[in-house]
């Protein structure tokens, strides 16, 4: 037995001697799942373009040019010699590509903020409810039940109607309806982990409650949660698009993907490009997030780690 182990250790050592740089090691995580790699790269690209929008966008997204309105996609330079409107112009003569690039900023930051804040609050409440049980659990989970029993979009719409539209209010509104899922997920995960021998062993060696909760339980239940984070981000980007489409989200002249579809829908028969391109980019982003989410779930299973 001990001979075999020694051999195993030697093999491992010789393997790790073949030095790999950080990038190669990172790529290794994607082995056997090239689709996820493509999705991941696209996602990074979309995020990077959104962040660096002012340097990339060829036109001001808010400045129209009434002469140039509703021009179809073209590779020809406009009369004033600027960058060609490759995705056309909208009803006010604004460059669709530039609006798309700036719109990504809003969609991404709303989606990310909601998931980050909602995820943290929800996960924390779920952890506490699951670990302590009893009255704590009862009260937290009843609040979650009540919050979940209202139709989400309706609550968000009402909230924005009362407080007025805008990115900040939209984020808060989506937060109000988007934190419960994490609490439910975290609680159900903790309930199983709480009864495990691992937790019992941690108590036996004298670990404090926060240490058990955050050092042992959380890292072991985080992978389904991370998957939920990524998938919820897709959900929140769609929700932002819905709200903006209905006119309760981002207000013109600012730009967001949902708003572009909302504004352009009257022209869909005559100027399809105003609606189709934002629609495509929403679908692409959500699809990429879903693919990456699935990959994360597989990758974070510790028993699969080091098995490729």
């Amino acid at each position, binding site marked *: *037995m*001990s001979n*075999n*182990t*020694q051999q*195993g*250790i030697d093999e491992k050592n010789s393997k790790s001697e073949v030095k790999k740089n950080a990038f190669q090691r990172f790529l290794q995580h994607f082995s056997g799942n090239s689709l996820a790699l493509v999705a991941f790269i696209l996602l990074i690209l979309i995020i990077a373009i959104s962040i660096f929008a002012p340097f990339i966008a060829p036109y001001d997204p808010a400045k129209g040019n009434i002469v140039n309105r509703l021009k179809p996609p073209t590779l020809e330079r406009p009369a004033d010699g600027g960058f060609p409107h490759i995705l056309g112009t909208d009803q006010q003569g604004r460059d669709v590509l530039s609006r798309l690039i700036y719109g990504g900023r809003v969609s991404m930051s709303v989606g990310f903020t909601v998931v980050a804040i909602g995820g943290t609050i929800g996960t924390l409440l779920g952890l506490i409810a699951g670990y302590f049980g009893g009255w704590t659990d009862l009260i937290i989970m009843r609040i979650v039940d009540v919050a979940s029993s209202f139709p989400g979009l309706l609550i968000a719409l009402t909230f924005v109607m009362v407080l007025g539209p805008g990115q900040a209010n939209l984020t808060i509104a989506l937060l109000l309806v988007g934190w419960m899922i994490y609490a439910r997920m975290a609680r159900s995960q903790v309930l199983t982990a709480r009864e*495990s*021998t*691992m937790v*019992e*062993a*941690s*108590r*036996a*060696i*004298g*670990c*404090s409650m926060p*240490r058990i909760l955050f*050092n*042992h339980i959380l*890292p*072991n239940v985080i992978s389904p949660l991370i998957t939920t984070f990524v998938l919820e981000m897709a959900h929140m980007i769609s929700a932002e698009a819905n709200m903006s489409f209905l006119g309760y989200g981002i207000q013109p002249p600012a730009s967001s993907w949902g708003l572009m579809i909302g504004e352009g829908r009257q022209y869909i028969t005559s100027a399809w490009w105003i609606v189709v391109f934002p629609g495509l980019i929403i679908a692409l982003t959500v699809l990429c997030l879903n693919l990456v989410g699935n990959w994360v779930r597989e990758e974070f299973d*510790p*028993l699969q*780690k*080091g098995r490729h």
Partner: protein
Amino acid sequence: MTENNDNIIEVKNLVKYFPLRGGLLGQPTSWVHAVDDVSFNIKRGQTLGLVGESGCGKTTVGRLVLKLIEPTSGEVIFNSKNIYDEKFWKEKEFRRNAQIIFQDAFSSFDIRKNVENIVGEPLLVHGIAQGKELKEKVDDLLKLVGLKPEIAKEYPHTLSSGQKQCVGIARSLALNPTFVVADEPISALDVSVRAQILNLLKDLQKKLNLTYLFISHDIRVVYYLSDYIAVMYVGKLVETGPAEEVFAHRLHPYTEALLTAVPIEDPKMRASKEILQGEVPSPVDPPPGCRFYPRCKYAIAKCKDENPELIEKSPGHFVSCFVDFHGSKTII
């Protein structure tokens, strides 16, 4: 600790009932009598073997003794202090002195941590060592249980079952405890490594002057390791005493049944084997009489209605049986 009291642990009338919730509002409808009025003492440096079949409550006793679960009633006196008395309860001090070895070591590990983190965690939590000193102590502990220090960077799922159990033992010994509950430490292991772990436990006891509560369903293993034996059946102790004495003069039909259940190497002897008939009674609201009564072929009318108390039949040898039973022949 007074000198005339060399009991490291005294268990007095320990009771643990688990509620079975079935009512509309979740109120308990019945109770599982997992541990029912169990008392025993363990002397410093000695081993008490707690033996019984699956589900008899022996693991629950192990958990209660370490205060990993709270009892329904009863006392556990550890180093002359009742661990259930909140006045005397010092969690860290107790955890340093009393440790547990689990049946399934792997499930007791945080699988995201490597061996070094697992074995070193007790030292870190109790602020005994950190950094380089911690690493050295972990290496020493691994050597103590016969593992190579190189294993420290491995993750538990890459180890063999024997190595996993050794890592578990190393973690239990990290705080230099005086008392260790070994909960079926070899049951999940391959036959080939069982002897190795048993001998390791025995060597460590000698080296570190450990006191064991050794829990097992295998009476032969218990006999090999223990100074005292306590036989448990459906939440109650039926026979206790010095290991040699209990083996030579079995006074309870259940102890006899446990012994005859041990596989016999000689095929010619197998014909004489008696297999217990009937089912183990449910520990949910058990009947008032002797709990072994439905399966006991020596049972008399009294056994059905009255519960036999533990009575000292010879010095240190207690048995709870109305029948004057004596084991037939020496088997081991």
